């Protein structure tokens, strides 16, 4: 029952997104424009600064992720559908999981485009260890999106939500971003340091477990008026 509800919420979000593709296109465009700005800061005489690619990748991801998080709940608020969703006889944590899965898939879709672009534009050997890099990206995305989905959902009723979301989200998710950037850096350097990357993957798994557990635990009282 739990997963059925989660999958239904996910399907609903994906169906809306598949029709308009609004969040995907805008998020992707924003992420790419972030790359453009970073190129001004981190490229000197045509050569990208060493080790810059991993930081650029993760910052572009978190910035564009914040945009997507705000937008996906803005849509619910605009259509007055969040209340309907919460009134449905379904467990609140299941709704949260559905929303989270939708967010993770959306961010992964962005990453699929962003990753080759960063590798291409900043001359980073991002595909040297594809499995480890995928693990880092998926775990990092889950960690970021788990806190983000919870905070975006609870801020929906607040007037100042656009400002408060990044204010709350970034300090809390800094451990995830550190692990992502450090892990990716270890993979990009020559030769790749697999031991370090694996260590950060382990830490990311720990953060994900803590964040998802806390979010599942607090979603219900936070969404009750």
């Amino acid at each position: 029952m739990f997963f059925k509800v989660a999958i239904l919420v996910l399907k609903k979000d994906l169906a809306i997104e598949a029709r308009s593709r609004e969040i995907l296109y805008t998020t992707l465009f924003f992420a790419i424009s972030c790359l453009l700005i970073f190129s001004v800061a981190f490229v000197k005489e045509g050569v990208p600064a060493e080790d810059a690619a991993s930081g650029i990748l993760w910052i572009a991801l978190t910035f564009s992720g914040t945009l997507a998080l705000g937008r996906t709940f803005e849509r619910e608020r605009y259509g007055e559908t969040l209340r309907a969703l919460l009134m449905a006889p379904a467990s609140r944590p299941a709704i949260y999981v559905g929303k989270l899965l939708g967010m993770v898939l959306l961010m992964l879709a962005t990453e699929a485009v962003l990753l080759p672009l960063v590798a291409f534009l900043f001359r980073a050997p991002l595909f040297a260890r594809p499995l480890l890099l995928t693990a880092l990206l998926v775990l990092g995305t889950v960690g970021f999106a788990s806190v983000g989905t919870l905070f975006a959902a609870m801020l929906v009723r607040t007037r100042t939500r656009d400002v408060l979301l990044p204010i709350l989200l970034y300090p809390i998710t800094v451990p995830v971003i550190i692990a992502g950037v450090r892990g990716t850096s270890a993979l990009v350097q020559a030769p790749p340091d697999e031991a370090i990357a694996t260590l950060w993957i382990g830490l990311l798994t720990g953060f994900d477990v803590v964040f998802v557990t806390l979010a599942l635990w607090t979603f219900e009282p936070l969404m009750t008026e």
Partner: protein
Amino acid sequence: MRKLFVPLAVVAAAMFAYAPVGIARVPYESTMLLVQKIFYFHFATWMAVTASVAVCGVASAIYLFKGTAVADHYAVASAELTTIFCTFGLVSGSLWGRKAWGVWWQWDARLTMAFMLEMVFLGYLLVRKYGGPGAEKLAAAMGIFGAATAPFIYKSVDWWRTVHPQTTVMKTLGDKFPAAWNLVWFCTAAFLVLFVVMLAARVQLEYLRAELDRAYLAAEE
């Protein structure tokens, strides 16, 4: 709590009056000499931060799940105290770092994470101020997440060690340097008593503020 307030305030004052004397008397540490003396307050401050974060996390969880107003008063009071003690700890650490490492600030794991903790609790206060109606609940979520990440801050130095001393430094200090060991815990106790006194005062203030709000609402009706 109210009966204990004055005695505790007196105890805190007495302890802080003695602390500089004790720090002046304790012998120099062999490698860092005079500079090391800031350690007694630096460590104690961060212990007060730990206590404050723990109170905020527990109070936030109680408020979120039970809705008790007193828990919310404790949460906001301890969040404010966290930012104050955290600032003091960052400043004392920075002064010490200038002399011990030669730089004001080092992007070491522990410092980064302490900075992050400060940001989390400043965020908590911003949500309360600008969140509008229902901000207490949002802030409670922030308090819970902030307190949950605090253990990572403590462990981070062991995982990603750079220049900051390891967390095992306290374990070895007792055998090597007993005078310093006793003084460190004396200072820690002083800071904790100070924390309790300030917490009690701030909770009382928050309670009165809530009462005043209620009285305003009652008068309008």
